[in-house]
């Protein structure tokens, strides 16, 4: 029978992996080498693939466009900008902003650049006035205006960033003499900025001689040369400070990366950089002419050249690893398996077949493996513990809770661990997903956090404390439901209760140690162990709550059911310490508090209170106490 279960589970795995590989094959144009190119953005060197995901996520709230990967969309924006004018990628949540920009509101809330272009000036003015307001007191609408404006500016920047490699009428030369002088192919009429720039030394003497002559005496050829050179100057002035910093500066290749336009303006004298820019032009041509081989090869040559110059930079070594991390979607797999584990458990609870319980455990383990792998990859890529943003802490706490679930299942061997692990995994990864929509989940850290030692011991300890307290709370739910469903099975109730106490003890130990380690870190960096700061207070509340439960139990103020109920309330406190406090610092009086997270938190607390009151009442009746 067990064999059948394993066979079923393996089938599910096979189907899932096939679907993933199938989706990776999508998009005919070979973008692997392009996605592998490195870019410096928000202080971190990352593959363009990651960058594309963040930009598209920031624009549209999704990481794919028309079911194609973000990278394919970004390539179109950069290389064939005019074709993306009608792509509906700009997410505007407020219909009133769309109206203000003269666009009829779309049901999917996503608009194209062509739609928004007419209102751009209006948007610019709105954004300028929103910018006057302090970030804390901006309303939702004002934030949305700024976001939309920044997105449009970034889009425009992206569309211009490779324009040096596209032939333009500004650089069309009608005089054969001038073309010959520039040693450019005579068959061509329009040239690119780069082509002229590469040969501009050849016409420099003519240009220099013009200053001595009266402009009315200039020949046709001389006029042509003057026109081209002044266009060159105007272009180089206009296209400054654009995005896409893909070229490491010769002088400081670790800190200072340049966009192609800036690289041409500042370091064109360097042969290596000149070569890299030529590769980028080949890349553009390959894409526009639909020549996959030229495109792929140019991307590879460019990357090789950059890599050779930056071989001593740490993060360059992990570009490929990050790419595979992006592709694999480890946490998506984990999430699916945790769902399956949960569903298998529910089926087990309904019909009591032990095979289903076994399947539930198998799925839990299967989810845990990619979860662990994903975390390890993040640690290697970023070179720091995976607990520096809310997103990461949710992923980490989910991992820890599933681990505790697995341990409980190994110890308890009944069913408790399955439900604890799968519920925690499913719910926490859902919340993590909400937090990942900010864009880059691998951000740089402010100075005080930039200490791997303290970050590595304090934050994981405290978040493991969160996990243990959450697990205790989930067991509390299980206890109450068990008391209602099977009040006569006291042995089982007792076993659940003891596991609950152990989780709570672990929660207390880890939360206490984590909080005090935080105090020691604060003493090391600010000179005070304790300052009643909101984050410290939040952690302290968890510790105090655990201590209260243990002492109230000794003083006979709480019975078993009471301890279970108090543990459930413990999750509310953990939620408060974990992210409720962060909402508070945004300011209770600003609109920030009505954002999705806060609404979710309030909804959760309300649901929890209802469960507690109804559950405890009913359980008391069933247990006859």
């Amino acid at each position, binding site marked *: 029978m067990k064999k059948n279960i394993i066979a079923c589970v393996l089938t599910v795995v096979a189907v899932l992996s096939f679907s993933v590989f199938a989706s990776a094959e999508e998009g005919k144009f070979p973008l692997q080498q392009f996605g592998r190119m490195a870019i*410096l953005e*928000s*202080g*971190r*060197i990352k593959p363009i693939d990651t960058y594309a995901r963040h930009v598209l996520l920031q624009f549209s709230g999704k990481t794919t466009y028309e079911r194609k990967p973000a990278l394919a969309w970004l390539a179109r924006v950069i290389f064939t900008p005019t074709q993306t004018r009608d792509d509906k990628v700009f997410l505007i949540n407020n219909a009133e902003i769309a109206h203000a920009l003269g666009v009829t509101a779309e049901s999917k809330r996503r608009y194209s650049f062509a739609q928004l272009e007419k209102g751009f000036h209006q948007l610019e003015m709105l954004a300028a006035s929103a910018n006057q307001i302090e970030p804390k007191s901006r309303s939702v609408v004002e934030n949305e205006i700024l976001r939309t404006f920044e997105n449009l500016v970034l889009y425009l920047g992206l569309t211009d960033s490779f324009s040096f490699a596209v032939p333009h009428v500004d650089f069309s030369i009608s005089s054969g003499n001038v073309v010959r002088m520039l040693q450019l192919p005579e068959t061509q009429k329009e040239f690119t900025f780069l082509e002229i720039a590469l040969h501009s030394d050849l016409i420099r003497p003519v240009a220099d001689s013009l200053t001595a002559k009266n402009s009315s005496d200039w020949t046709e050829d001389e006029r042509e040369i003057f026109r081209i050179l002044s266009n060159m100057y105007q272009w180089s002035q206009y296209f400054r400070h654009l995005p896409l910093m893909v070229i490491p500066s010769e002088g400081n290749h*670790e*800190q*200072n*990366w340049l966009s192609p336009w800036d690289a041409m303006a500042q370091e064109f004298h360097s042969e290596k950089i000149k070569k890299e820019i030529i590769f980028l032009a080949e890349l553009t041509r390959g894409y526009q002419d639909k020549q996959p081989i030229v495109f792929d090869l140019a991307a590879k040559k460019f990357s090789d050249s950059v890599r050779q110059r930056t071989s001593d930079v740490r993060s360059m070594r992990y570009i490929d690893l990050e790419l595979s991390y992006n592709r694999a979607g480890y946490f998506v797999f984990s999430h699916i398996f945790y769902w399956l584990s949960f569903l298998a458990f529910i089926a087990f609870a309904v019909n009591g077949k032990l095979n289903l319980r076994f399947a539930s455990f198998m799925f839990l383990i299967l989810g845990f493996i990619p979860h662990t792998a994903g975390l390890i990859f993040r640690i290697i890529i970023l070179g720091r513990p995976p607990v520096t943003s809310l997103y990461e802490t949710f992923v980490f706490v989910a991992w820890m809770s599933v681990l505790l679930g697995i341990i409980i299942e190994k*110890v*308890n*061997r*009944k069913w408790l661990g399955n439900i604890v692990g799968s519920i925690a995994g499913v719910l926490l990864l859902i919340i993590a997903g909400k937090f990942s929509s900010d864009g880059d989940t691998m951000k*740089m850290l402010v*100075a*005080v956090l*930039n*200490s791997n030692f*303290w970050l590595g011991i304090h934050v994981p300890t405290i978040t493991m404390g969160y996990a243990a307290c959450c697990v205790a709370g989930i067991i509390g739910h299980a206890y109450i439901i068990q008391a209602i469903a099977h009040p006569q099975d006291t042995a089982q109730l007792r*076993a659940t209760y*003891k596991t609950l*106490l*152990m989780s709570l*003890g*672990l929660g207390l*130990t880890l939360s*206490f*140690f984590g909080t*005090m380690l935080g*105090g*020691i*870190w604060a*003493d*090391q*960096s*600010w*000179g*005070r*162990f*304790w300052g*009643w700061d*909101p984050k410290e*207070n*939040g952690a*302290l*509340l968890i510790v*105090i*709550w655990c*201590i*209260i439960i243990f*002492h*109230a139990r*000794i*003083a006979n*103020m709480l019975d078993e059911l009471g301890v279970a109920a108090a543990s459930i309330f413990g999750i509310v406190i953990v939620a408060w310490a974990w992210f409720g*406090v962060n909402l*508070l*610092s945004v300011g*209770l*009086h600003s609109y920030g508090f009505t954002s999705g997270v806060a609404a979710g938190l309030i909804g959760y607390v309300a649901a929890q209170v209802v469960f507690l009151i109804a559950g405890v009442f009913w359980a008391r009746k069933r247990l006859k106490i």
Partner: protein
Amino acid sequence: MLDKIKSLRIMRTLSSVKWAVFCLLALFILVFAGTVYQAEYGLYLAQERFFNSFVFLLFGFLPFPGAQLVLWILFVNLTAAAITRFQYKWSKIGLTVIHGGILLFFISAFVTFYYSFESNLTLNEGESSNVSAAYHNWEISAWEKATGKKSVIAYDADHLNSNAVLRFDDLGFSLTVKNYYPNSAAFSESDKKDAVRNSSGISILEERPVDHDPVKNIPSGKFVLTQANSPSQDIILFGGDMLPTQITAGAKHYELVLRRKRFELPFAVKLVDFRMTKHPNTEMAKSFESTVEVQTPLASREVIISMNNPLRHNDFTFYQASYSIGRNGEETSTLAVVKNKGRVLPYIATIVTFLGLVFHFSVSLYRMRAKDPA
């Protein structure tokens, strides 16, 4: 004797676990309320109201114990329990160690709260100083001008009441407080310039509401200067005065100033160099560090102070707190200076309590498994 104490009824009451539970609940409410309060009123006021106080009015009408009172009761409760209730036997060693650690926390809180001070030292590159300044405590200081070694007489200015008299007997004058404002603005009126004595030409003071951030308060006061053999005179001292106010008594000249409280350090600190690095292509600081020279009469040494990496010298600890870069690129570094004799106590308490917890819960787990093998 000990048994006699143990059997006292009052000891049984004082050591009750119920007390602990109620105190912890009160502490829970205080910590939560103190956090929410901070969002609106700032850290300093929250600390004063909820944590440093003995009693305060919750919601403005409900008398509620402050954290200081609650912690004192908990301390008494725990001490009484340690005398009467604890079972000192090997099977309970984990619990004993945990509570021993908690007692240590109480002691370290006491030492830190009553016997430590915090101040700050702001230095330009190349500058050296042995005087650090408080964040928001003020003093009125006077000294004789142009003597070699300054001997300064200072009065604490934080709690000055009207009509209080500050006597500078050695200098031959005294000040009587007319008005004192913890936060204020100052103005000058050209026609009344000579009526009041002040180094910045201030003649009018205006009281301002006290700021939530105590660092932002600029106090000021109007005083009557009384000297032997001369008529009394009005004098204004403003926290924002750039120069001390001059006084002449007899043939001698004195200087008088209202300033942030000064602390003299037993050694001097010189800022040799300040450096800041940013994350590439961003404005986000990656690290700051100051190279300083500690100059004692006997020797001097150079040390680098950076975030998370303070300098310790005697009982003093110096932290990288803040910095500024002027228009011409001149760099200034602010170091927090903390003197705390009890600073290692919480470290020890943390380790003791943690080990106790680990031991206690491991033993419980082991016993639970032994009792009912699954």
